[in-house]
């Protein structure tokens, strides 16, 4: 199970990998150990330095999928603007629209008969 596997082109030894990982871990620990220990956790000292500016939220500094459609929305903004304004989110408004449109339809049908 832990023996060396000869492939014909090289070999595979899990023992060498384990030793390599341990050595890398020791190097990482030494680098961490040599680091500055006086930083105060939970203060500005452990936050990123952005030229003195506050760190913004990830949502505020990343490009959203919505931004891909900017040109589409900009070209059709004259269509979208009244549509968005008419969608108030109030159910009474929607019922009112429904009644008005239904009345218009009935008037048209009544005129055709």
């Amino acid at each position, binding site marked *: 199970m832990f023996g060396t596997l000869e492939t014909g082109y090289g070999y595979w030894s899990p023992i060498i990998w384990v030793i390599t990982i341990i050595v890398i871990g020791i190097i990482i620990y030494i680098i961490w150990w040599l680091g*500055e220990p*006086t*930083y*105060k956790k939970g*203060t*500005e*000292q452990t*936050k990123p*330095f952005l*030229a*003195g*500016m*506050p760190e913004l939220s990830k949502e505020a500094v990343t490009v959203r999928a919505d931004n891909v459609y900017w040109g589409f929305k900009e070209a059709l903004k004259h269509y979208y603007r009244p549509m968005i304004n008419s969608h108030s989110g109030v159910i009474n408004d929607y019922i009112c629209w429904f009644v008005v449109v239904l009345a218009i339809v009935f008037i048209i049908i009544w005129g055709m008969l």
Partner: protein
Amino acid sequence: MKITKSFERALWVFHVNTGSCNGCDIEIIDALTPRHDVERFGIRLVGTPRHADVLLITGPVTKQMEEPLKRIYAQTPDPKAVIVVGSCGITGGVFYESYNLVGPVNEVLPKDAYIVYVPGCPPRPEAIIHGVMKAWMVLESLEGKKL
């Protein structure tokens, strides 16, 4: 005097311009040029306050720079010292009582900040180097107190 641990390393300085006319900044650059060459003493400018022992501040503090200066001071690891280079950062200088100033540096930083003043308009590079050495002595005393 017992030589403390910080003598074993270089003194790293972070430069902050809080509204200077750049006169003092040019003198700071002069201190780095081959004529004075402070890097031979281990004094060098760094690009982030997180690596700095000393903040080198030039100019009076404008309203735009008040919050960044407070944040930069807070981000500098302890123990730390502040050097105010030039008359503007000490008293406001020629910009005294200007409408867009918060005030001199000591009115913006915490009251317990250790500040070394280098007066002049602008001060000579030798005076700036002297101020850095004073700040180094402040750090040595703080190191001894284990703050």
